């Protein structure tokens, strides 16, 4: 009798375990949790985690009449795209996961999306903005960041209407894929708006001393300095601009000012620096999972005790879009159907109105412009949704 009961219990346990597994949709992500992109990588992960929590709180992803819990398997790529590619291969072949949430960084997405494409797995990414990602004829990659070449366009458009009217621009950029494209786009935009580009120069990725470049900028005395790099170089440029008393009318960056750590690292030196932003906390968008962007910000603050950065929002939005596509496709296993649902996707999310062209690139989203004012990021453009007026020209360093 005892044996029978035990066997029954064991069976119950087994079937319960199996059932719990069948009620789950597992996503995979290989992110930079350590290394030079650790900051951004962890932010994207926070976004994924918050989305997972929110969906699971509501019962899960709905397919037909059944709800499936979300689970995400993470690996750390140590900020090495090659390692990221290997880990995504592991996710697909060993862990049997075909729904991949993207990493942060253009190079990482570039390398890992080649793997998802090869194995016919799907990737939705809210972490990379290089144009080059979408010129390879891939069918399985969908990205929600406004692409690199359009990054600085809105800042330059905003500044051309200011007085005294800025005439000259210096553009410096880190020589990685993403930053080089931002710089190319910025140069094109600058010429389109009638600025004179007096300096256009690259520096090696990860450089920690840019004093020569800063001195060279000083020699040209430009009205606007555009820095197209990553968080760490942005900090270096601001610090060394102060060291060498370089005083442009506007100092703007593609990446950096939008991150909360920007003000923490630079303190008062961060004041009046401009930045391009994929997303800000104050944008008024509806969202199918969180309710609205404002609700998302509230939930994020409750969980992480800090304001979400655009990376985190991008991560959450990527999850939301993946989820909505799966729900619309009505399947969690038929990759072709989910792909079709993504291609036809058109919905307002916390990240903006999302729609993909046939290459998988988001279209018509644009960029917001922010400025550090009184130690916080304020949206200053587009003026219709701005919180405050942009300070221009930037006061000289103290």
């Amino acid at each position, binding site marked *: 009798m005892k044996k029978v009961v035990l066997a029954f219990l064991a069976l119950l346990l087994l079937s319960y375990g199996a059932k719990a597994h069948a009620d789950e949709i597992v996503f995979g992500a290989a992110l930079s949790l350590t*290394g030079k992109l650790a900051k951004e990588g962890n932010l994207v992960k926070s976004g994924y985690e918050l989305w997972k929590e929110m969906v699971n709180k509501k019962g899960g992803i709905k397919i037909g009449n059944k709800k499936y819990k979300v689970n995400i398997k993470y690996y750390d790529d140590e900020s090495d795209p090659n390692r990221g590619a290997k880990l995504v291969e592991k996710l697909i072949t060993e862990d049997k996961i075909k729904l991949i949430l993207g990493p942060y960084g253009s190079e990482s997405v570039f390398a890992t999306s080649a793997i998802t494409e090869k194995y016919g797995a799907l990737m939705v990414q809210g972490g990379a903005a290089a144009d080059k990602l979408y010129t390879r004829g891939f069918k399985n990659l969908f990205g929600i960041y406004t692409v690199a070449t359009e990054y600085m366009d809105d800042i330059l458009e905003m500044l051309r209407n200011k007085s005294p009217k800025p005439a000259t621009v210096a553009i410096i950029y880190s020589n990685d894929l993403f930053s080089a494209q931002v710089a190319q786009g910025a140069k094109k935009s600058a010429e389109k708006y009638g600025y004179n580009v007096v300096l256009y120069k690259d520096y090696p990725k990860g450089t920690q001393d840019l004093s020569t470049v800063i001195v*060279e900028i000083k020699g040209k005395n430009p009205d606007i300095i555009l820095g197209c790099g990553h968080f760490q170089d942005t900090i270096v440029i601001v610090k060394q601009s102060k060291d060498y008393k370089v005083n442009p009318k506007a100092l703007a960056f593609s990446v950096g000012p939008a991150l909360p750590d920007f003000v923490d690292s630079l303190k008062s030196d961060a004041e009046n620096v401009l930045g391009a932003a994929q997303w800000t906390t104050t944008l008024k968008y509806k969202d199918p999972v969180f309710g609205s962007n404002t609700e998302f910000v509230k939930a994020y603050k409750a969980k992480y005790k800090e304001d979400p950065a655009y990376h985190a929002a991008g991560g959450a939005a990527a999850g939301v879009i993946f989820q909505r596509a799966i729900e619309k496709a009505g399947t969690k296993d038929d990759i072709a159907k989910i792909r079709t649902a993504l291609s036809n996707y058109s919905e307002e999310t916390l990240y903006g109105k999302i729609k993909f062209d046939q290459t998988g690139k988001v279209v018509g989203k644009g960029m917001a412009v922010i400025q550090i004012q009184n130690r916080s990021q304020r949206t200053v453009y587009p003026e219709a949704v701005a919180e405050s007026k942009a300070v221009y020209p930037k006061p000289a360093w103290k």
Partner: protein
Amino acid sequence: MIILQILVNGFLLGGFYTLIGVGFTLVWGVTNIINLAHGAIALLGAYITYFIFQYWHLDPFVTLPVSFLSMFLFGYVLQRYLMNLVVKAQIFMLLILTFGLEIFLVNFMTTFFSADFKSVTPDYAGSSLVLGDIVIPYIRLGVFAICVIVTLLMSFFLDRTWTGKAIKATSLDIEAAMMSGINPAKIYALTFAFGSGLAGLSGSLLSLTQAFSPNIAGGLTLRAFIVSILGGLGRIEGAFLGGLVLGVVETMSSYVIGESYKNAIAFGLMVLMLIIKPSGLLGRKYYAEVKH
């Protein structure tokens, strides 16, 4: 005017290169060890300064003796109880040993201190000396001054003290040195200790001028390598000249040709030196070569 500013920057940077090169060239010249872990040891010094500044809010310049002494001890123990085991083997074995040590230290730092960039920013960071059109950040000036002073002290130590002379004697003729009552094992350990101490010191100074992470260890070792080749092995004055030349060439090439070509130019310079004058600017035949 901009050229003048860039020259000044080059000299200031050269001061730092001198200091990181001095320890490296001394170890190479005297003990014939090419210490590939030099940059990693420098970073240990940088982390010492970082943590002391972070937790006890001590002025970073005050931490310099701490990082020098700890790395000095570290270097002494390392040479005495590890390197000495293989010192009589082929130079290739020592190279592998220091390479392994570099990998170990970098991974150790990555594990315990994370791969994130750290920087030391005291309150007076960002203030500069302005001389007409030339701007000199005070911190860089301070770093330069310390580099020069330490290099001079090191030179004085080698030329004027008994221990210093013993170090030189050992590098010149080990047998004659032994006959005069010098214990080479001790001298080797002492030299390595000085090399490591100077590396730690330069790392601490590095943390003041730029952000650092364990990943930059290799780059630092390479700079020290170039300085040694340029200046001539085992010579303090050589490292001084080599460091300044490297600093000025790097900043000038960054300005004239482009920041991205800086490394290529620096290495090109080194190769050129090896072709034209393999013993370096101030190197003479005897150092490091007599022994083998």
